[in-house]
């Protein structure tokens, strides 16, 4: 059993879903990081469980695994460090760490 599996077995939270990230055409960061971001298309844009919106530059940050409260993410397009939290509407929201 790997270390990850051991931790998962004792973790009260269910394991995180994994996501295959494809290129979305976002080209505002170096090539190897592009799959981790996509353009936001406004209020009606529904975010997946592995996505959170950067409040500073309005780019969607994508992770290869499901995001949860307390996770730290980095917005490379605006170089902001963010922490994932729960918004008033129940969805995931990121706040900036200065």
């Amino acid at each position, binding site marked *: 059993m790997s270390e990850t599996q051991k931790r998962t077995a004792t973790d009260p939270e269910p394991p995180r879903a994994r996501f295959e990230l494809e290129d979305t055409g976002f080209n505002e960061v170096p090539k190897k990081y592009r799959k981790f971001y996509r353009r936001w298309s406004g209020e009606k844009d529904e975010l997946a469980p592995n996505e959170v919106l950067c409040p500073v*530059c309005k780019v969607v940050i994508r992770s290869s695994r499901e995001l949860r409260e307390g996770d730290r993410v980095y917005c490379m*397009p605006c*170089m902001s460090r963010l922490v994932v939290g729960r918004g008033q509407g129940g969805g995931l929201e990121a706040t900036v760490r*200065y």
Partner: protein
Amino acid sequence: MADFLNAYSIQNWLESCPQAYLEDTVFGHSSDEHEPDLIMENEVLRHDAIRTTVALVVGERCALAASSGLINAAPDEGSKRFLATQTLDEARHVEVFTQRLYDLGVAKEDLESVIAQHANPNLVKFAELLLEKVDKRDFLAGVVGQNIVLEGMAFSVFEMMHVMNAAMNPKFAHTLQGTIADERRHVGFGENRIGSLVRDNPARKPEIEKMQKEMSYWMLATFSQAFRDTSAVDELERIGQERTHSNYQGADLGKLSTNEMEALLGDTVLKEFKVRLGRIGLDYQSPDRP
């Protein structure tokens, strides 16, 4: 702090900007993209496009003067390097929007007179307020004015213009998309760098908030005059050309009057200011309405 400032490297800028979204562009767009015939063959629409583009050149000249002026006022090497890249971004914006004036038929020898003729005096006042801080080498006020207020305004204005032009004028929309990408870095720097400085200098808050209030007033006055002066909506109606039904902030821009568009843009920018300033510990001050 050290890790945070390390992100502001020239190498990072090279890989994110010239080697990314600007690759293979000519003055910010593809070489095979041109101003649409609808604009070039209609004097009213062409004139309106020139007036709008002059506002962009005036704003970007201010941003160029501010970002270059702030380099020597910056307290650390990381900020100096970032502002050096921002200076080149702003110089590029001046260049691409100036090139658009040429593409719209402005003769090179007439450039300055066309800018002087169409420059929005309220935008000039807005710029003077900011450049006064820069001239005093006031890094804190200068970055709030430049990277939060000016760039925050530009971010929203460019986004609105981008959605308006995406279908009708892909060349201009493409140019705007590159400037929006640049603005992401600029607003990010403003928030990330200034948050800690505001915390360390609480006595400066009232003065900076006063500057924000004054700059916001001149911004609203700029919008007011710009939308009052525009003749594009009436002309499109006169020639029977349907407006593009693009969505901005949940509204169909093809259905809004110019007054409604002005209100939507003003409210959007002020709302953004409030949120951005709140994040860095400044209290947003509501401006008087022009």
